[in-house]
């Protein structure tokens, strides 16, 4: 998380805002969002008919808007919202709307560090992406699967580039879709184009495509792989080699292909959400080895522990040696780390977070309507009315815990030595 080392890691407890105290000032207060550094808490508030504001730490943004939705902090703690004035929409960052206004705006996106902010827009019935207040020059009839490159400012989407009328099924099947990269469409047209992946430098874009109603593959910079499949899922691009890696379906089973060739010997009933370890040496994915069972596989070898309901939110440790995810069986969630599930079960669990030294795993969880933070399976701090995902300090010795307790928002730094 950017700038983490400059955050306040010393003050044990800060009562940031008494949310209950400001409640009476507004018709209603919407769900709160805490900034990544925990120093701020913000909500959309209603002031009057067609008059909305954003309340940050008890104070209102200077500007109000006719409508506000999708309040979100960027990773670098800037507060964004989708705002409307006089029937025009824009993105407001820390209270100030961008110069560009559109007929509609949605789907705010951030690059990994938060430096780049983007969103989808519609202007007079045409579609594009606006990045840092700069809209695409070319607009399209329709747009889906918007994507911002990890470090920005490159953006892409699946766009419609040919006309077909209602019921013109054969024309549709000739291919009317492609990827637009920064607003420039690829030359190749496909029957369908779906989710993209960017290489870290933005030079390679790969996307799921359907060549005809039955033939799927991955297209890389507009060129489909030589091999085709019965189905594919979203690719990822290896950060060092630039190779494109995607789950593919062959003869009713799923595996992993790299640049078109299957690289895992194992076959599964499902494979998706593949991820590459930070050092680039391991490839993991969520897999279903037998019907109705879910686990993680690393380089094709799957774990013993399996979940009946689902598995999600997989993440590698920073040193690439460990792997964690959220698993669910019989309606109860837990965290699994390196094939070992925690003993405790929860009604909900959020994506696990590794400490920078990779030794500890923490997660936000919920049980019986109360939220709390768990480290290595052990609850720290008390049950709260709300909580945010925890953040470890850069030296891995402390953890930032953001909670709402009895209507008050607190930011706490808890030392791991206190927990043990």
């Amino acid at each position, binding site marked *: 998380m950017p700038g983490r080392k400059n955050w306040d890691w010393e003050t044990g407890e800060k009562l940031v805002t008494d949310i209950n105290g400001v409640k009476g000032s507004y018709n209603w207060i919407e*769900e709160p969002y805490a900034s990544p550094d925990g120093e701020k808490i913000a909500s959309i508030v209603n002031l009057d008919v067609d008059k909305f504001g954003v309340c940050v730490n008890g104070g209102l943004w200077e500007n109000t808007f006719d409508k506000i939705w999708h309040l979100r902090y960027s990773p670098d703690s800037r507060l964004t919202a989708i705002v409307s004035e006089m029937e025009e929409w824009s993105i407001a960052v820390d209270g100030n709307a961008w110069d560009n206004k559109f007929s509609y705006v949605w789907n705010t996106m951030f690059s990994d560090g938060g430096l780049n902010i983007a969103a989808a827009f519609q202007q007079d019935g045409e579609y594009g992406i606006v990045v840092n207040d700069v809209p695409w020059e070319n607009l399209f009839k329709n747009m889906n699967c918007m994507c911002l490159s990890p470090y920005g400012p490159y953006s892409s989407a699946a766009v419609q580039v040919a006309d077909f009328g209602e*019921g013109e099924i054969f024309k549709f099947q000739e291919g009317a879709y492609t990827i637009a990269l920064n607003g420039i469409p690829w030359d190749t047209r496909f029957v*369908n184009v779906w989710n993209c992946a960017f290489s870290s430098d933005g030079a390679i874009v790969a996307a799921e495509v359907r060549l005809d109603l039955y033939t799927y593959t991955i297209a890389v910079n507009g060129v489909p792989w030589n091999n085709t499949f019965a*189905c594919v899922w979203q690719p990822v691009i290896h950060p060092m080699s630039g190779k494109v890696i995607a789950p593919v379906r062959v003869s009713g089973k799923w595996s992993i292909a790299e640049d078109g060739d299957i690289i895992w010997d194992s076959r599964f009933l499902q494979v998706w959400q593949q991820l590459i370890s930070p050092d680039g040496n391991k490839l993991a994915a969520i897999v279903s080895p037998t019907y*109705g069972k879910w686990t993680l596989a690393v380089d094709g070898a799957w774990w013993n522990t399996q979940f009946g309901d*689902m598995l999600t939110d997989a993440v590698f440790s920073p040193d690439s040696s460990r792997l964690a995810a959220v698993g669910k069986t019989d309606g109860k969630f837990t965290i699994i780390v390196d094939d070992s599930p925690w003993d405790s079960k929860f009604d909900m669990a959020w994506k696990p977070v590794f400490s920078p030294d990779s030794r500890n795993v923490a997660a936000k969880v919920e049980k019986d309507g109360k939220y709390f933070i768990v480290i290595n399976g052990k609850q720290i701090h008390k049950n709260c009315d709300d909580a945010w995902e925890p953040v470890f300090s850069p030296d891995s010795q402390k953890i930032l815990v953001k909670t709402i307790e009895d209507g008050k928002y607190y930011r706490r730094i808890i030392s791991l030595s206190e927990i043990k």
Partner: protein
Amino acid sequence: MAEVIEKTEQRIVDEGLDKGADKLTGDQIARVIKAVLENETGARLKVYVDTCVHCGLCSDACHIYLSQNRNPKFSPAGKVKRTMGEILKKKGRVSPEFIRDAAEVAYTECNLCKRCVQYCPFGIDVAYILLIVRRICHKLGVTPLYIQDTAHSHSVTMNQMWIKEDEWIDTLQWQEEDAREEMPNLRIPLEKEGADVMYSVIAPEPKFQPNLIYYTAILMNTAGINWTMPATPGWDNSDMAMFTGDNEIMGRIKRAQFDAAARLKVKKIVMGECGHAFRSVYDVGNRWLGWKMPPIPIVHAIEFYYDLLKAGKIKIREKYKKSVTLHDPCNVVRGAGLHEKARYVINEICENFIEMHPNREHNYCCNAGGGVINCGPPFKNKRVKSNSVKAKQIRDTGAEILITPCHNCHSGMEDIISYYNVNMHTKFIIDILYEVMEKPGD
């Protein structure tokens, strides 16, 4: 009756079927059939087809057979004989014309309603067999134009009505604004992570019946439900790809729905009054993806209303006065056993509930389900004429209002009511519930 048969026997023109079949070659047909039968079906299909003794016990279960003057070609076994029976007998060496006609049978003469399986002494599931026929026809590119267009819409937008992403969100915000005139602090919370409930609908709601979203917003706010709706694809639970036989697109759109729910960290997905969508998220689509059960529980509107009324979260101001009857939708009754809960809800909100006969899991299908209504205008006449038994069944109740807690049933029944001049109006449960419930400020 004779005239009915004569008219339905006229060849129906459908570009999807006709042009699709024109492109076929015998070798291609044989190859695709072989691939589907060998790779995608197991012992089940063969056992079904081999076991059928043509006893005809299932025939009277089928509303189409009954409505078509008991013409054996419309009996469940008759439809299998005209499609899969021939395919197996000829080892896949069938003509393009045969495929075209088999597609018409599979897509428009069977609702996959599974009523017949209940009467077969061997439990032969004709719907399953005809679904395999549909899969073959999809693979051969011979599908009715309207439903194929819908499957294309699903593939691009993840919804069935070509609704663009901004149009969806804008509709929700417009409904929210309208509903605030009635309930000033009402919200339709978009993208609220950690809500208990994600509410999902089928695309005809934002497109043609946004009032249903409005009513639900009033219901959710009155009952104090911590809910959300996604502002991303995955909001539409409907699935015509399941009915064209495009399993890959079916899987993709179901994944979009469950991914949206998982991302929003909700405990359950509550869905509006739709039957086929329930089948898709609860039974077929989830299983194609490898989930034995939905990874995030799916609660159909009937069950949701039941829970709210039972828990006293919604109270009834005054029961609905007009006489009502209930059409049990196949997919949530035979498919999920929600019939008693539906009756509890209706008795709680209506004064005068009249059963139709047969009812519950024995109810006749509306003849719209299974994607049949989605095959569009070319087949509309045939569809309504093939369900005179339904017209009689509802007319016999004498009720003023027909409750159909399913979108396809709802539209199908409106066609039947109008064609057969039945003096009745259709309503969803939420139409009545909204009208009779206590609201804040009452």
